[in-house]
């Protein structure tokens, strides 16, 4: 009986090691991307096409821009798809990344409930922020150091306001874009989002989304997405060649067209602008 047990133990150990071996990854490139490209379903279209075109597998993890930059610093990913130009430029200048490449853009919108309790509709960005700062209605922020969150903080500063960090009406979710919009919906609150995620959100809610776009079209709400390769000088393990390949592929005419044709509710979510 004891012998049977020993054999069982050995067999299980063998099985375990072979299992571990088989799980080791093949040739692939690891991308840290902002939640908007994942939440909208864009990555689900790009990744299989990349593998088909190049034979390289594209794996991605969807997190805020701030965390993506941290992952790049820690050498845990090979390439980033992010949208916070000021932080990106600093990141490249600090020697953590290189070859920052513009891929596409959309714009930010400030959204809120249809009855619009603090009357943001049609206001300029600065006016809107000042009205929000009265605290008469709740505002839901990402609060996660993402590209959208960084943009929102810059808007408070632009309006000459302190970020209302500890105010009761200022709700910080620390979650992804769609999750944050769902919180705003439940609370009947205002929020800020990129256009792509807003269209996806509207589609999720059918023809009649509870939150609508109130402030839009200001040049200050421009939202640029860029690819950055992790600098091999900082991370010897990074797959710089594959990252470069991904950037070349994403800025090629065919893929730029593919991004431009990605539509929900007959609206474009991202507008390609590679140079």
């Amino acid at each position, binding site marked *: 009986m*004891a012998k049977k047990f020993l054999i069982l133990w050995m067999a299980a150990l063998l099985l*375990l090691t072979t299992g571990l071996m088989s799980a080791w990854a093949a040739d692939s490139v690891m991308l840290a991307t902002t939640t908007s490209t994942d939440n909208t379903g864009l990555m689900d279209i790009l990744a299989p096409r990349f593998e088909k075109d190049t034979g390289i597998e594209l794996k991605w993890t969807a997190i805020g821009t701030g965390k993506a930059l941290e992952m790049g610093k820690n050498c845990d990913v090979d390439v980033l798809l992010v949208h916070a130009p000021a932080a990106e430029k600093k990141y490249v200048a600090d020697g953590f990344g290189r070859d920052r490449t513009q891929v596409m853009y959309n714009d930010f919108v400030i959204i809120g409930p249809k009855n619009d309790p603090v009357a943001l509709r049609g206001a300029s960005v600065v006016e809107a922020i000042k009205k929000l700062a009265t605290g008469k209605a709740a505002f839901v922020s990402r609060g996660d150091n993402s590209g959208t969150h960084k943009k929102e903080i810059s808007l408070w500063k632009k309006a000459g306001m302190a970020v209302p960090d500890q105010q009761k009406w200022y709700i910080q979710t620390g979650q992804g874009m769609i999750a944050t919009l769902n919180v705003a919906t439940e609370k009947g609150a205002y929020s800020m989002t990129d256009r792509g995620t807003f269209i996806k959100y509207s589609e999720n809610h059918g023809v009649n989304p509870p939150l609508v776009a109130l402030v839009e079209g200001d040049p200050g709400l421009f939202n640029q997405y860029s690819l950055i390769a992790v600098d091999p000088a900082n991370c010897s393990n990074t797959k710089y060649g594959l990252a470069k390949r991904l950037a070349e592929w994403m800025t090629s005419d065919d893929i730029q067209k593919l991004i431009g044709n990605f539509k929900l509710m007959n609206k474009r979510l991202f507008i390609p602008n590679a140079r």
Partner: protein
Amino acid sequence: MDYILSGLIQAFELLFQGNPETYSAVKTTVFASSLSVGASMLIGAPLGFCLGYARFPGARPIRVVVDTMLSLPTVVIGLLCYAFMSHRGPLGDLGLLFTIPGMAIGQTILGLPIVVALTASAVENLDHRLKQTLLTLGAEPHQLLLTSLWEARFALALAGAAAYGRIVSEVGISMMIGGNIKWHTRTITTAIAMETGKGQFAVGIALGLILITLALLVNLAMSGLKRLSGQ
């Protein structure tokens, strides 16, 4: 109420039409949790035996430590493993971050105390005459270990099931170390967290149903084993 019902209906559609994303998450969950339950058992059973069998000074404090580790939060394990497995961390060169083996290591840390504690209790509760009989018959130490574990085999299986239940339902470790990567490290629980975040309740409900079914299967197997042992 409407969306809950339509979620349920859509859930069954996803299951029976063989939705590849759903099945990829199921496969990852089964694979990762099998690896970690296996490792927990292989490492934990001998350790638990020593703890329950041998009388040595310090056994009691160790028991307290093991019992404390039973309630180790998964996010703390996730955080520690992430710090170790990041390329800046001491184990960074192994490339474990964002892989199933990496997740399995974290989950093993979760399952190990359960197996150790339950094995130790099971061995403690074994008939004391067994040890004496074995020793009188001139058993070597390893024979003592194996025979005792064999006698406690059903309690061991229960320890495995308990560990499985905790591992298969955790989300903190899978999310932090696995990274919820589609087709790779997206498990049932991380997918549910993500789909709920996106407001896609149907997929979440479908995955939840599968998770419950998995747990049911394991428990059915366990009660079957128990009945076998009774005969």
